[in-house]
Each structure stands twice: as C-alpha cells, then as structure tokens.
C-alpha cells in the first residue's frame, strides 16, 4: 500500500478522534472539568444505532438520528445529575465522579448487551469504494473494482470517505456556530468568565447544558462512524478512543476548539503512519511519545491559550 493510502486512513481515523476531542475540549473549556465518561458516550451511541439498525423497521438514517438524540439527552442528564451538584467542589471530586459515571455506563451496557462483541453493520454497507487508478492518460476515478492492480494509486472505502466528509462538515458547522451565533458567543463568554457572562444576561446553566448536548451528539456521530469502520462493538469500545481523543485535545491545547480538530487529525495520522512503517504494537506508545515531546516544548499544546497577563 502507498503512503497516501495510510495518510487517508489516518485522516479518517483522525477526523473521528477530532469529533470526540471536540466534546472533551468544549466541556473542559466551559465547565473546567475532564469528562472521563465522554468516551463511553461513543459506546452508547454505537449500541443505540446498532439496536435501531438491527430492528427491521428502522432505516439507517433514522437509526443514526435516534443515536444522536439518545446521546444528547444522556449527556445533558449526566451533567444535571452528576456534575452540576459539584460545580463548586474540588476538581478531584469531579474527576472521580466522571470516572464513576464512565464505569456506570460500561456496566449498564454490560448488563443490557452482554460482554460479547457485536458486529456493527456499516451505515454505508452496500456502497462501493472509490478507486483512483493511474493510467497513461492520467489519474482516473472508478467506483467499481478494476483490474489494474499495479497502477492502483488509492482505494478509499465508503466508510473512510464518509468519516472524513461528515467530520469536516461538522467541524465547519461548529466553527461557524461558535464564532458567529449568539449562543456560540455565549459559550465563549462562559468559558472565559462565568460571573461576567451572567452580568451580560447569559444563562450559565443553560449554556453548560448546551455544551454537553453538542459534545455528546458529536460523540454519537463519532461512535457510528467509528463502528462502521472498525465494526467490533462491546461495552468497552469507547474507552480507548476516548483516551486517545483526550490526548488529542491536550495535544491541540485543551479548551481550544481548532486545537481539538488539529490534534485529533494529527493523532490519527501519526497512529496510522507509525502502524504502517514502524510497528503496529508500538503505535499507541509512539502517539503518547509525540504528545510528551510536544508538551515539553509547548506545555499548553499546539494551540493552547496563554494565560493572559493583566496589564
């Protein structure tokens, strides 16, 4: 396989990490907490979509929407029940609560779905891959298998393609929402100074709920995309991608929205490239090593905000 091939699969995985990392970073920015249950929302999203798709009557698109709705509500409810009462508690108490919520979600899934891995049906099951083939006349584009293996440049599965496109569209929409709408500006204001935001008339509780809702809906999308590309679904499916996305958020600068996007994509690319060229066993270690090196030279992450000195 070619370098470009690995690059594309890294982009696809990285785009999914970015969606998850956005949830981490937005919640951190606004509630100043690490929501370690965030990864498990991915798993809930996967199981919800799996259950809906498995029932004969539910079309795929509706299953995805149901999954998004379930995760959005779940995220908001978790915040209300578990985190809101601890808004003024020491950070360690909040962190332990988040870990507790994470175990709760995993065990609930274990109870309902058992520990056996399910085979997740891809949401673009019957769509053919794209192929780019190099011929004398230049690069050609096919959507059905062709017999020119020696000149094959690149095969992009529909899952890879959809992951990249959907993630990019969502990231663009989110960027627009945050920077151009009133609710988005309110989120920026709350993340910088809750008290001052209240003086502006911003409802801080509602803004925090909105942040959890957005983060969890992105996690649902990430769950569906990830399970479509990597179809094994079990109660622990969310934890490793959750941790990687957390790393991606720190890598990009925790609290920074473009940072989470860049961090997620870089992480996916580094992971796939090192899997291909160095060692598939060591790829995770390499990812963490890169993180450590970046943090040594730039402790706030790639796009981390400096603490503003008062003039």
């Amino acid at each position, binding site marked *: 396989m070619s370098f470009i091939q690995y690059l594309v699969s890294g982009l696809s995985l990285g785009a999914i990490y970015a969606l998850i990392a956005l949830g981490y970073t937005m919640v951190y920015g606004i509630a100043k907490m690490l929501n370690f249950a965030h990864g498990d929302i991915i798993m809930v999203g996967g199981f919800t979509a799996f259950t809906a798709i498995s029932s004969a009557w539910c079309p795929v698109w509706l299953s995805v929407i149901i999954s998004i709705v379930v995760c959005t509500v779940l995220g908001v409810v978790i915040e209300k029940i578990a985190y809101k009462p601890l808004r003024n508690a020491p950070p360690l108490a909040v962190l332990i609560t988040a870990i507790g919520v994470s175990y709760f979600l995993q065990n609930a899934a274990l109870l309902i779905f058992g520990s056996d891995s399910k085979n997740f049906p891809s949401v673009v099951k019957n769509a053919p891959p794209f192929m780019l083939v190099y011929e004398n006349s230049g690069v050609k584009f096919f959507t059905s298998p062709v017999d020119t293996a020696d000149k094959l440049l690149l095969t992009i599965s529909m899952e890879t393609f959809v992951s990249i496109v959907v993630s990019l569209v969502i990231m663009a929409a989110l960027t627009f929402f945050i920077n151009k709408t009133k609710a988005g500006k309110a989120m920026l204001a709350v993340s910088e100074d809750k008290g001052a935001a*209240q003086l*502006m008339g911003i409802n801080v509780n509602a803004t925090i709920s909105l942040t959890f809702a957005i983060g969890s809906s992105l996690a649902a999308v990430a769950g569906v995309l990830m399970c479509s590309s990597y179809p094994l679904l079990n109660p622990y499916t969310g934890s490793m991608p959750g941790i990687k996305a957390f790393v991606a958020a720190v890598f990009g600068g925790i609290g920074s929205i473009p940072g989470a996007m860049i961090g997620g994509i870089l992480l996916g690319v580094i992971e796939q490239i090192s899997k291909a060229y160095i060692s598939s066993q060591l790829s995770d270690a390499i990812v963490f090593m890169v993180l450590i090196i970046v943090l040594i030279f730039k402790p706030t992450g790639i796009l981390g905000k400096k603490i*503003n000195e008062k003039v």
Partner: protein
Amino acid sequence: MSMLHIEDLHVSYGAINAIKGISFDVDEGEIIALIGANGAGKTTVLHTITGLVPPKSGSIVFNGTDLTKTPAHKIVSMGMAHVPEGRRIFQQLSVYENLMLGAFTRKDKAEIQESVENVFKRFPRLKERRNQIAGTLSGGEQQMLAMGRALMSHPSIILMDEPSMGLSPLYVSEIFDIIRSVNESGTTVLLVEQNAKKALSIANRAYVLETGNIVLSGDAKELMNNDSVKKAYLGE
C-alpha cells in the same frame, strides 16, 4: 420611593461575615459613592446586588422587584448593569464582540447598532480598536471597554467597582469625567471606590463602609469636610 433599596443586608463567605446588616438607598438620577478601605466589603455588596453572591439575609429591591429572588442572568435586562472589579472583559474576544455581549439580552438590531455608535462616540479609542482582541488593550482602554460593554445593555442604573484601580492619573481623570457624563445623560450610578477624594468629588451622596458596616453616610460635599473621613480616606 427610591430606585434601589437595600435593607438589613447580611452576606457571608462560609464563616466569614463580610456584610453585617447594611441598609442604603439609591435614588433615580443620583451618583452614590460607596467608599471604604480594602476588604471593607464594597465588592461583596455589588456582587450581592447583581446576584453573583447570595445574601444570607436582607432584601435588595430594585424598581419594586426583590433581586435576592432573581437569578443573576435576569438582572441586566431589568435595567441594571455592573462594571465589575478588575474589569473582567472577555480577553479572547474582540472589542466589538465584547460590546455585543453587553447587548446580549436586547433584541432590536437597529437599537443595538445605535448603542454601539453611542459607545464609540463616548470612547473614540474603542472605535479605532474595534477589531482588536480585548486582552491586548491597555488597562485604561480595558476599563473603557468594560464601561462601554455595560452601557450596551442600555441600563437605568450602572454599578461600577473601582473603575480607577491601577490606572495612570490621566486615565483616572478621564474615567471620572465619563462617569459624570454617563450620569448627566440620565443613568443612575452606584460607584464603589478606594479613591475617596475623586469619588466624593462627583457624588451626590456617599456611604462609608468599614468591615461590613456602614459607619457614615450623607451628602458627599459634607463628608469631604468630615474630620474622620479626611483622616481615614482623604489622607489629610
């Protein structure tokens, strides 16, 4: 009836009683100064009025509504703006975005634009820097932005917490001129200051706060000639 009436207000932070039963009034059109040393409880009073800190007991009635039962984010749309201590502008956002957040609860786009123009007329420096990131403004400019942001809600009363803090003498004079002119254009002002001399010079009436109690009150000009005020706050 007065515009803002505070009755037997007690505020505590855990075991620390910061405000120990104070009462005072602000009438429409006035500039009221609340002066006192560092740690006297001035900021606590303003924070309690706008709901950032809950009172232990007492009432805060603004135009007939008890603010102690009103969520903090509902207060600005009732016509009360607060320029907090340390300015607390949104450092990451531009000057213009900060101003627009000041108008967060207002709906009418045309009226908001008119308010922006008015703020820019009052603070030409903000107009020049409208797209600059607020955190990169100088201290005096940040104070102007904090005041402009408060004015964007079109308040009937504006609470200001140490607007002169940390500013050069030139800026201090400018800020006090602006406070006076904001008041002349019809906005009531409750001014908290450590700079008692300046505050008393523009206020109609004043209250002196000492470790959570109001120990003196009255006409600002009379307080300026009061011996204990002179000794404790005017450095004479």
